[in-house]
């Protein structure tokens, strides 16, 4: 870091630089948009030197791309094949299975809970003979590269708290997001790009919205906040100079700004002034780095073909997958995608098909693309939603139409690369797809595992705030060693 700053002829903010040295800068991670000020100490939010010392062990993965399927895709029409549900079509959910588990406010008053099997067919693929539904033909082709976890479970039964729980480890919000934790723990590989970026897209299915608290830094310094990249003219807020202003003019202006700030420093002597100068220089570098990292125009046709026609349309999930690969390649630690539209309370057969069409090809292409570039080993790709869906129909059940309510007790996600065993199916649910029968994976276990793959011990990646130590996994979570290479 010293070099980085000296390269730009800037005086390091000596006071903070030295104080951060004293706690072992070499081992402490640097924030994504690092300014020495980050290490301001004596606050309750001080970097806990005893704990950090990261990485805690040799990382398998360097980066994460998280393809979040917002709204909760049905496991029963994707990866968790339940022929029994077809046999028992229309029959009542047995109380021996439900065992009085709570339901959402939407179906709690439903007088009947008729079981419903997938309207879509399943086949087995790959060496693991993994079941994949016909809605995901491209994913079916990469099953030997991914690990499907069918035994995920979570604590909340509604979108907002469940999504927040997945991303921040707590249902209530105001905690740092997983990407923020990684930014805090590992910093950025690229000094000119944020360590944690967010890309949004929407399908045509029933959507549930996203909330900026999902990529919030919580109580961590704002340098660890997820930076939303949009598909508009300004990929990052306020990135572009105003119309009519050229780069060389901005440069000149910044030189004059630095002169005046330096002049002020001579009078006042506050090192914060030099921090400000460094801040403007980083902004200037970002103005070049971000457009380069987000420029898809030089991608060859065969790449667009791989990700699908949608990938040529900015703002689609497919385009975001391609963009995610580029950002990840450029050293962005955590690229978080959200694709809305997976909340199929009704019209599941048609909506789910449309949602799957949006994401299937591009998700698989991303895995293949990373693999062909030799990047899959060091990049962890995650695909999944915030909970699962009920095995009984919400609303009217007909032969060709039904809906499914929220179901936190079991659902499926997949992971690939980054030291996760390829070609594996982990965990199982009962024959009606209601309860987990083997190897349950709690959200905190999942989070612990993700951190572990990046070389971080979830029990040691802590931050002191309001008198106590906080971690992503709160007070629980265990690494799922079975699925690690």
């Amino acid at each position, binding site marked *: 870091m010293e070099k980085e700053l000296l390269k730009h002829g800037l005086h390091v903010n000596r006071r903070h630089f030295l104080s951060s040295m004293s706690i072992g800068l070499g081992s402490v991670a640097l924030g994504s948009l690092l300014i020495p000020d980050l290490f301001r100490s004596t606050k309750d939010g001080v970097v806990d030197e*005893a704990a950090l010392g990261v990485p805690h062990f040799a990382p398998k993965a360097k980066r994460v791309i998280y393809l979040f399927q917002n709204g909760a895709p049905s496991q029963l029409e994707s990866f968790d094949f339940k022929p029994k549900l077809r046999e028992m079509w229309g029959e009542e959910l047995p109380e021996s299975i439900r065992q009085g588990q709570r339901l959402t*406010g939407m179906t709690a008053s439903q007088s009947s809970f008729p079981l419903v099997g997938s309207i879509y067919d399943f086949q087995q693929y790959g060496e693991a003979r993994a079941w994949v539904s016909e809605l995901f033909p491209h994913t079916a082709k990469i099953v030997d590269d991914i690990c499907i976890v069918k035994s995920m479970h979570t604590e909340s039964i509604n979108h907002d708290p469940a999504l927040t729980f997945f991303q921040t480890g707590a249902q209530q919000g105001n905690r740092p997001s997983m990407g923020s934790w990684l930014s805090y723990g590992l910093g950025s590989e690229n000094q000119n790009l944020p360590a944690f970026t967010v890309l949004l897209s*929407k399908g045509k299915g029933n959507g549930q919205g996203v*909330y*900026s608290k999902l990529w919030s830094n919580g109580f961590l310094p704002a340098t660890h906040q997820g930076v939303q990249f949009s598909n508009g003219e300004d990929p990052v807020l*306020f990135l572009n100079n105003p119309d009519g202003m050229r780069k060389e*003019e901005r440069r000149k202006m910044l030189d004059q700004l630095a002169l*005046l700030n330096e002049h002020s420093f001579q009078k006042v002597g506050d090192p914060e002034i030099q921090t400000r100068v460094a801040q403007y220089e980083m902004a200037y570098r*970002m103005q070049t780095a971000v457009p380069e990292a987000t420029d898809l125009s030089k991608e060859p046709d065969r790449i667009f073909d791989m990700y699908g026609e949608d990938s040529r349309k900015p703002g689609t999930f497919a385009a975001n997958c391609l963009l995610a690969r580029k950002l990840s390649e450029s050293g962005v630690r955590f690229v978080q995608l959200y694709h809305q539209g997976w909340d199929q309370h009704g019209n599941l057969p048609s909506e789910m098909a449309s949602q799957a069409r949006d994401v299937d090809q591009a998700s698989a292409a991303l895995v293949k693309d990373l693999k062909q570039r030799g990047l899959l080993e060091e990049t962890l790709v995650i695909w999944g939603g915030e909970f699962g869906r009920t095995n009984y129909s919400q609303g009217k059940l007909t032969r060709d139409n039904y809906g499914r309510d929220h179901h936190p007790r079991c659902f499926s996600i997949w992971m690939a690369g980054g030291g996760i065993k390829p070609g594996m199916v982990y965990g199982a649910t009962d024959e009606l797809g209601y309860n987990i029968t083997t190897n349950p994976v709690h959200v905190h276990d999942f989070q612990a595992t993700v951190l572990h793959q990046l070389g971080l011990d979830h029990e040691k990646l802590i931050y002191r705030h309001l008198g106590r130590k906080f971690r992503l996994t709160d007070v629980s979570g265990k690494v799922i060693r079975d699925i690690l290479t």
Partner: protein
Amino acid sequence: MFGMVKKNNCITWLSGPVLLIVFFSLACENQKKPTGEDIPESISYNLHIRPILSENCFACHGPDANKREAGLRLDREQDAFAALKEAPDRRAISPGKPHQSEVYARIMTADETERMPPPSSNLSLSNHQVQLIKSWIRQGAEYEPHWAFVPPEKATLPEVEAADWVQNEIDHFALSAMEGKGLQPNKRAEKQSLVRRIYFDLTGLPPSQEVLNRIEKEEIPLNALIDTLFATPAYGEKMAVSWMDVARYADSHGYQDDYYRTQWPWRDWVIHAFNQNMPYDQFITWQLAGDLLPDPTKEQILATGFNRNHKITEESGAIDEEYRVMYAVDRTNTLGKAMLGITLECAQCHDHKYDPISQEEYFQVFAFFNSVAEKGIEEASPGFSKKSPAKLPLMEITEGETRDILQFINMPDSARRVQTLLANMSKGTNYNSLLAEANVLKVSVMGDLDSGRTTFILDRGAYDAPTEPVEEGAPTAILDFPDHLPKNRLGLAQWLFDPNHPLTARVYVNRVWQEIFGIGLVDTPGDFGMQGSLPINQALLDWLAVDFMENGWDIQYLLKKILMSASYQQSAAVTPEKIEIDPDNRYLSRFPRQRLKAEEIRDLVLASSGLLNREIGGPSVKPYQPEGLWEAATSGRGNLAAYQQDTGKYLYRRGLYTFIKRTVPPPQMILFDASNRDACEVERVKTSTPLQALAMMNDPFVLEASRVLAEKLLAEKSSLPESIHSAFYRIVGRPPDDKEIAVLTATHTDFIEVYNKDQDRAAQVLAVGEYPANDSLPVAVKAALMQVISLIYNLEETNTKS
């Protein structure tokens, strides 16, 4: 575990030189850095020992009865000195005898199975900490009550050497502490910077051109200036900014679809209350319990909106009781953080691990807030309006009342009301039900069920796991809840303002101090408990707290006391020597320079360019915002699905009035560390990121202000140096010096050259913002001056209170 004593424990073989060697190796193992800290002659439990025990021991040997290991409790003298449950012949602490104290044995042992804290806890003591504990035991292991739980007292003013620097009592304490550190205070600040500082602290705005001109010519007594500023409406607005963070105020309900909420009349009341200089005890009492006062006025009930500002779900599947409990939890935690400065929330699921607050006591406090006549989710109940902008219990405010008893409410006309409520919503059920509400202004307020509601302790804090019933009460470690007080929120307020309450005044005084100096005397303003920081100058904090109470909880009195001190009025100049001794300026041997808050940056830009709309209160407004932010995140439902930017005068309101949609808070505010209003916040962490620089360089509102000010100065037909001088003066608050004039003139020369050759680009640069352009001026000249002004807005000094 602690009590599991083995016969062959380390003490028997650790003696003499061996001890030293083991000690040394232990030290090497545990130490990440050399301490160089000496063991003080007299060891204080509060100052030296409790922080170590709290951090390393209390989680298993502290207040939480359920997690207590080996039945041993170290946070209380009687337990620590008693015979060990598992080894009655030994004691955890034998006063005067470290070598006969199990505590010392266990922190010293090399045997990992014996060592405390156990290696599995990821905790370890440094050599220095071990030495402190040893010396403390040797000196008699004297426990002290936690400083913050003992009522504050006024100490005698300390003697100081540089007595002629002192202006009031504050300076005695501050200077004495400085001198103890070998520091000398700065001289008084220059008149202009001092006036600018006072303006920001009391109004959140820079001094106007007229004020700047006046102070150049005449001497204005600061005393009088302060009084004048107290009397301006901007004072209430400035004070409201941080109260909005405390009160988690927002303009949307906060979950998922995130519909619009009309809570702004409560915000107007806060501004009004500050402008009336309502005493703090009354200010809080009304907000906690205005509805329970005898014959409450509508204003008193409106004040209780404070406790309805929390997030409220409108997610269809939500379980009613789960959320209803969550709201009461939010109020309980807010009381803890905002008024008690205690992390009550840690006792929701189990006894507090560090502070003597049991889970039962948590639910006793919770009980005060548990009888509200509210729903967890209204639309799940039959007969409720969908997506109402206020939730039951609520009050309706008529136009008549805003002309009469609630004059401080800035009621918009009905067209504006419909516009703010329905925005660009498409027609449908929700549209119709909202339209039906547009005629009445509704605000969520407090009101209890007639029947009350029994409160139970909730196992692990879970809404569906009630155990024992409890009654309203307060943590006894802080102050007993007297029998004569009513067991309701009014009684709770009276308990808070009991003259013997150890926390209420300290916590507020500390936050006011923090507003002004950037860091509180206790730098953990939300945690005065065992894990919080000790005050940097407790005598000063206590003196101010008592003085505040003695003077009727008068907020302006407190502010004036601080602003009239030499500590406040000294210059902000920094020297390497001072940085060496006191890098974070905790001893205040200089005025701490601080970046302005998000709202202040906005207000500064608008005020100095002349764009600022000084209207007070009313519905929050939607100024320029980068396109597509709300649209990208929304489910598509609701009256806040798309950002409908305001126009005209609404674009130029103060930052306090910027619309806060919780799920997508305004980026300009968030970039500069403002709260997202998810929950009560008592401080803003200050960060420095390149995104802030990008915003200052490229945000249209800064560019528009630069253009408008350029046009204004050019219209005055002043010369270029005069224009530069005037712009700089308005924005930075002092005249530029020769060097600054020279650099800015050079900037101007660069740009005028460019724009003279390329008028189109000048026109492009000028085409920003909706404020009408002055077309009579030459574009190149306008654009060049605009760039100079934009540069001035980006100066570090501009955005710094110094």
